[in-house]
């Protein structure tokens, strides 16, 4: 294509001009095309390993990804941020799930899942509930010592609808890339709010309650028996491990390259749901008085967060979690912590890290 210089004085804006030629080059992918947050598992604000995941516990470790188990299973897993990644793909971290207590025979209601919940207001481009509903394509890298059929389900909490697709881990202990496309849901409902709009479930074990029907490969009203038909039991041996990274969920019917974000951008996105903030204060003391101080969050949180037992970094251990257990003033923007009825001996520097949680 050639583009010749146009002489301004030769153009008459009242005229119509035609462009001829061919536009070449690669279109730039839209920013933030990945609906999943922290799909490369790089952000782990809570820590890098948690062991003894047991019945009814719900655990976040790697940001935005939740371990869930239901029923009354006896199996246990350790979840960690791992450096075992597919070679040459640009990933540095993965989630590893290691079965530490096996359960060869699952109860009917036993299950465990790795999931991410996505806010409804980040999903309105899917146009669910209309004839223009968009398809979604999920891609990820996975590796396991346990080969066989696994299930990846999308679930809409607002409309209580689900769709499940099977994928196969073909070779033991080998990274494999999986790509799954889900049709748009013309009958779906995703509220335009800060609540859960879409869940993505990676099943790891599923008892007979979740496998009694026919796998829901098209969107349908939620039916427990159609959720995870064919799912292998990752909990059947302590030799079993499962890794995943590079999770991307994008609009369309094909998978594009994984969208790597700068670390700070990825962290800031995660901090909408979980963050650690510092509170510090220095004061002289009038015995019996109350003292307080404010800390603004790094980014506005999804909703008013919960405060988790704080970590004291004051050497005198005076401004510990007890300092904010009265009833802190909380909002999506920050926390006002206070320490009441102090003693003269409490005078000095106080500093603590406070963890706040507004996960879905």
């Amino acid at each position, binding site marked *: 294509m050639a583009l010749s210089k146009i002489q301004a004085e030769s153009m008459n804006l009242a005229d119509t001009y035609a462009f001829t030629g061919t536009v070449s080059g690669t279109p730039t992918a839209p920013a933030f095309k990945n609906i999943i947050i922290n799909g490369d598992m790089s952000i782990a604000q809570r820590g890098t390993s948690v062991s003894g995941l047991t019945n*009814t*516990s719900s655990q976040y470790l790697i940001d935005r990804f939740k371990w869930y188990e239901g029923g009354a299973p006896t199996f246990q897993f350790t979840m960690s941020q791992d450096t075992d990644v597919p070679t040459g793909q640009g990933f540095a971290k993965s989630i590893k799930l290691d079965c530490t207590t096996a359960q060869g025979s699952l109860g009917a209601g036993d299950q465990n899942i790795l999931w991410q919940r996505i806010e409804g207001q980040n999903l309105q481009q899917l146009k669910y509930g209309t004839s223009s509903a968009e398809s979604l394509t999920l891609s990820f890298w996975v590796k396991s010592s346990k080969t066989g059929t696994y299930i990846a389900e999308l679930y809409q909490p607002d409309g209580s609808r689900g769709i499940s697709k099977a994928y196969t881990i073909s070779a033991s202990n080998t990274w494999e890339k999986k790509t799954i496309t889900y049709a748009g849901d013309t009958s779906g409902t995703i509220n335009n709010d*800060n*609540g859960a709009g879409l869940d993505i479930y990676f099943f790891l074990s599923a008892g007979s309650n979740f496998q009694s029907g026919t796998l829901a490969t098209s969107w349908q009203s939620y039916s427990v028996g159609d959720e995870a038909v064919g799912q292998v039991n990752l909990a059947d041996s302590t030799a079993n491990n499962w890794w995943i990274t590079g999770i991307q969920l994008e609009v369309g019917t094909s998978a594009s390259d994984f969208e790597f974000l700068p670390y700070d951008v990825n962290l800031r996105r995660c901090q909408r749901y979980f963050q650690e903030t510092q509170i510090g204060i220095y004061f002289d003391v009038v015995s019996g008085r*109350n003292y307080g101080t404010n800390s603004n969050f790094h980014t506005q949180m*999804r*909703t*008013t*967060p*919960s*405060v*988790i*037992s704080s970590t004291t970094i004051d050497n005198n251990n005076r401004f510990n979690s007890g300092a*904010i*257990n*009265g*009833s*802190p*003033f*909380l909002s999506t923007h920050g926390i006002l912590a*206070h320490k*009441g*009825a102090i003693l003269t001996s409490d005078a000095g520097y106080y500093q603590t890290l406070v963890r706040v*949680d*507004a*996960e*879905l």
Partner: protein
Amino acid sequence: MISTVEKTYREDGTWGNVYKVTYSDGVYYLVPHNEENRHYQEILEWVAEGNTITDNGGGE
């Protein structure tokens, strides 16, 4: 799994719309009275199962 839920009060005796929720592993959260908060949703489920929130008052 939730073990106990207790209303927490400020020094002036007012309730700040916050609960102290202690889980079976000893970890506790200070949870706002906010239906968008997942821990508050767990409190609602816990109460629906027949459990009771402890309210020792503000002591003022």
